């Protein structure tokens, strides 16, 4: 058994200092060690995108990163977005456009969209479709999700004014 390693990782603004096995996946660290179960694990080999989180502001798949690789990093999960009372504009847009059915893939889509809209505030439908090409949805289909990404962009632009 490999020795445990000390890591310092900031997740949603809280600094956690933990000892972890090198083989612990970042997705499992987030869910099991920190109890933040909003991040979902679908395929666990980097295909489905359900486990997408932000690492230093960039969308990454947490199931194909070791926790030790995130030592010193700033991680944001879906829990960082909004509350039941006050949702994030992207969450509002997903709700309004019915962009989810079972909701399993949704945290990944939301976190992917956070990074994307930060860099591309006004996407066309085609661009929105490309932006989410790394996330699978197995029930609602993608039409409403594409619309939600575009609506989220409008909401966020209105927010900033």
């Amino acid at each position: 058994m490999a020795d445990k390693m000390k890591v310092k990782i900031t997740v949603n603004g809280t600094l956690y200092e933990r000892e972890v096995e090198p083989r612990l996946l970042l997705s499992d660290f987030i869910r099991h060690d920190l109890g933040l179960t909003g991040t979902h694990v679908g395929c666990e080999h980097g295909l489905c995108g359900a486990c997408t989180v932000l690492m230093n502001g960039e969308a990454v798949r947490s199931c194909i990163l070791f926790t030790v690789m995130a030592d010193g990093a700033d991680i944001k999960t879906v829990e960082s977005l909004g509350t039941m009372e006050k949702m994030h504009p992207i969450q509002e847009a997903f709700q309004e456009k019915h962009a989810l059915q079972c909701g399993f893939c949704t945290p990944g889509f939301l976190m992917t969209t956070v990074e994307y809209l930060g860099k591309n505030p006004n996407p066309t439908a085609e661009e929105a479709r490309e932006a989410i090409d790394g996330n699978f949805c197995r029930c609602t289909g993608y039409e409403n999700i594409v619309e939600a990404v575009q609506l989220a962009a409008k909401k966020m632009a209105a927010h900033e004014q």
Partner: protein
Amino acid sequence: MKPAPFDYFAPTSLEEALEKLTDLGYSGKVLAGGQSLIPAMNFRMARPAALVDLNKVTELSYIKPTQDGGLAIGTMTRDSAIEDSEVVKRLFPIIAEVMPNIAHKQIRNRGTFGGAVAHADPAAQIPALSLLLDAKMKIQSKKGDRWVDAQDFFMGPFMTVLEPEDLLTEVLLPGLVPGTGTSYKQISRQRGGYAQAAAISKVVMDGIKVKDVRVVLFSVAETPVLTKEPVRVLVGQVPTTEAIEAVAEYVAQNECDPGTDIHGTAEYRRNLVRVLVRRSLTEAVERARK
């Protein structure tokens, strides 16, 4: 779906990384972006005894223009950094054209240029690009440094000339001749999916005739393929529609060895090669004429 245990080392300098790789020998494996290695470890198809993680070796991440109009790319440079780089777009528009086809943004945010070269996946874009652009691979170890041409670097599927104590530290891309036209064509089942077949072309024109041409295929053989027929037939000639079609047909029949799998038969892939070589060569010629 959980990796087997392994020893983990995270050096913070190149010197330290080379030291560790020498110490570990065959039990050591380099971890770059991890976007291919970690899935393989999750499946336990790969079970390295020890990993040397380069993510804290910041000196290996850079895009530096060289004097001949080329680029030196540090092995740990993220794919997304290359995709977003203005200097890459200006000097190597073909790289900017290819990058968005590599998996998905979440993968490109972590995956590295040098990691993809060293991984040598026969279905991957970056090894093929390095072959097209005549890249020089800088390989360092405790024993010393050496340079290997892309043509001599890839030995087979996931196999390169790298020894266990070696580290690919830089990919050097010689500058393109002014007026070079390039084009990338691939067919995949979905955006970001593996290409079933792909062709990348690079053409330099001298008036109405071809001065230089290179066509690289991938996903249709055990390594990326630097084809021979286009050079043999097209250099010094006017690249007519008929000439390009004949070259594409020859390449598809004789210069690739595609396999059959659930996504397509070997015959289908050969046909894709014919079509993609024709399209990419035609577009590269058009772009070279501008």
